[in-house]
Each structure stands twice: as structure tokens, then as C-alpha cells.
């Protein structure tokens, strides 16, 4: 894997800051609620953000992989790791809420929540072990499916 250039490192730092800022804004915006319901708001908003980001990443993967016929860049791969991390955080929050007694509207929300965490690693594995390049198709699959699952997750949550 090629090393990240300084500009790409800055972009990743900006992405990490944006995720943290997003979480802080949601918590501050719901400061009138109990801590448990603040976490619930964060869980909900991370899910919605996940849907939007998955759609944007699908569009970017299509642009790079299909229209330009280019391969995955280190920046794109690193961004995927960050998005996977935020999905994991979102699922862990859901698990915490469940343990604290809060329940989703439908039980299958738990299945969709688990799938939002698993969707990306399956395709990251294919891309990172691919002998045939370019391999951007894996991320078109991964983010496309993540968008569908995130939507179902929101509708059943």
C-alpha cells in the first residue's frame, strides 16, 4: 500500500475532526435530554450520516472505478476505514442503548445494525487481497449495500 502524502493526511485529519465535531454537535444540540437519550440521538444521527456518506462514497467509487477506470487510492481506502469505524461506534451505541433497556421499533433493526458493521469489511477484504487490479468495484458493492442496509436500519429503528 502506498504511503499517504501530506495533503491526504491533512484530509484524513479533517475527516476525523468532522466526525468528532458532528458527535459533539449532536450531543450539545440535545443537551436538554437525559444522557441516555442524548446517546440515542447520537446513534440515530450517526445512522443518518452513514446513509448520506455511503451514497456519496458509492458515487465517488462509480466515478473513479467505472467512469475513469482508475484504482483505489490510499486516501479512499483510509476514508473507508474511518467510515467503518463510525459504523462500529454507531452499532456499539445501539448495543449500549439495548443493554440500558431501550428497544428499536422492530426487532430486525438489530440485524440491520449488525449488517451495517459487517458490510464494509467483507468488500475491503476483497479489495485488499485482490490480485486483479483495478479493484474499485468492491467499494461500489460495499457502499451500495451499506446505503441500502442503512436505509432499512433507519426505517426499522
Amino acid at each position, binding site marked *: 500500500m502506498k504511503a499517504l502524502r501530506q495533503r491526504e493526511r491533512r484530509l484524513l485529519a479533517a475527516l476525523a475532526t468532522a466526525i468528532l465535531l458532528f458527535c459533539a454537535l449532536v450531543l450539545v444540540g440535545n443537551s436538554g435530554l437525559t444522557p441516555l437519550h442524548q446517546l440515542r440521538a447520537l446513534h440515530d444521527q450517526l445512522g443518518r450520516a452513514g446513509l448520506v456518506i455511503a451514497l456519496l462514497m458509492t458515487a465517488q467509487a462509480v466515478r473513479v472505478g467505472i467512469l475513469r477506470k482508475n484504482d483505489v487510492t490510499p486516501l479512499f481506502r483510509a476514508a473507508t476505514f474511518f467510515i467503518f469505524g463510525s459504523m462500529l461506534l454507531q452499532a456499539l451505541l445501539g448495543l449500549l442503548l439495548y443493554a440500558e433497556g431501550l428497544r428499536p421499533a422492530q426487532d430486525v433493526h438489530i440485524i440491520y445494525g449488525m449488517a451495517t458493521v459487517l*458490510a464494509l469489511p467483507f468488500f475491503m477484504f476483497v479489495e485488499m487481497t485482490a490480485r486483479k487490479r483495478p479493484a474499485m468495484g468492491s467499494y461500489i458493492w460495499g457502499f451500495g449495500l451499506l446505503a441500502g442496509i442503512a436505509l432499512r436500519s433507519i426505517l426499522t429503528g
Partner: protein
Amino acid sequence: MSQALASSLLTALVSGIFALTILRRWWQGRRAHQLAWGIGMGMYFTGALSQVILTQAWSPTFFALWYWCGALMTAPWLGQGTVYLLLRRGNIARNIQMALLLVAVMTLPWALWFTPLDGSAWRPQADMTALFRDIMPAGSGTVRFFSPVMNTWGTLALVGGAIWSARLFRRKQIMRARVYGNWLIAAGGLLPALGGTLIRLGEPSLKYMAEMAGAILIFAGFLLATRPAPQEP
């Protein structure tokens, strides 16, 4: 012993032996299509074994396994083997396999623990295909949504891929064994679907025979299609 029980028992036996044979070949050669077919036959076996148990006693776990293996997983995994053989460009086949794995990981706990089942609709010696709509009514809480998608995809991949390969080898006038093997796979893939149609037409007794014949034909086709080509003199 009822016909449903006897046929299911035989199907389980036949598909179990076939699954082990294909998986052993995969273990020796590590070819991806063999693993996919081995998993597909393993699902065939588990579905048939669950049907055997369900003719004798009600069990929510085996009903979930019967539905998950028979209605959701068998056709797509068998189809995945053909996809590996036909789609060699890029990583398409591996990506489809990952999508299939994701659906499998999602739907197994869904079928086992999150789908409401009505055990009172079960009757001894009954055909599960005729009863499953009463046991598992359609609704947003069930996995039934995935069934048409997975089966259509699996049957298209298995049967369509086999027919396409058979025609290709026939046109090129090469590897006659592969032509016959692929026709057998196509016929074997269609037979279980035909069994479902027979039930709707009021002839459920042939359904299990169709399932059993399907397993035998697919395996025979697999043996023929993967036989090494004769060496040029």
C-alpha cells in the same frame, strides 16, 4: 414410513455424500467454484435433513434451518459456483460471493430468532412447503422478503450459466463431457423449482422425488463438467 419421509431421507443422504465429495475435492485443489458448490450441496443436505426431522416433530430451530437453507441459500451458493467459472474478469465473482455471505450472515439469526413462527399450524408427516405460509406468515418481520430475490438470482446463475456454458462448448465443438455435464446441472437446478410448481398444481407427492433427482443430476453434471480434458496426442 411416509413417502415424504423416505424421499427426504434419501435426498439428505445423497446430498450429504455429494457435499462431502465436492468439499474433499476443494480441500485438495482449493478451487473457489468447488467450495461454493460444496457449500450449496451442504445447504441442500441441511434443508433435506431438517425436512426429515420436521415430518416427525415440530422444532422452530429446524424449521428456521429448513427455510434458511432450502429457500434462501441453496440456489445462490450453487449458482455462485457457476459464477466463479463464468465471470473471470476482475473481482466480480468474489464481490458477489461477499454479498452472498453478507445476506447469509444477516438472514441466519433473523430466521432463527427474529421471525415469529406459529407452531400450531404444523402437522405430523406434512409437507413443509405446503405449510410454511401458515407457520411463517408474510410480513416485515420475516425473512421471506429475501426468498424471491435469492432464488431468482441463484436459479438464473446456476441454470442460465450452465445452459450458456453448454451452448458455448457445443458451438466450439470441444469438451463434449462439459456440454453434457452442464445440461445435467441445468436440469438438476430446474427440478426443485418444478417440484414447487407441482405442489401448486395439486401434485405434492412428486416434489420430494424432484428434489432428490435434482441433487443427483447436479452432482452427476458436476462430475462430468469438471472431468479433466483428454490430453492431445
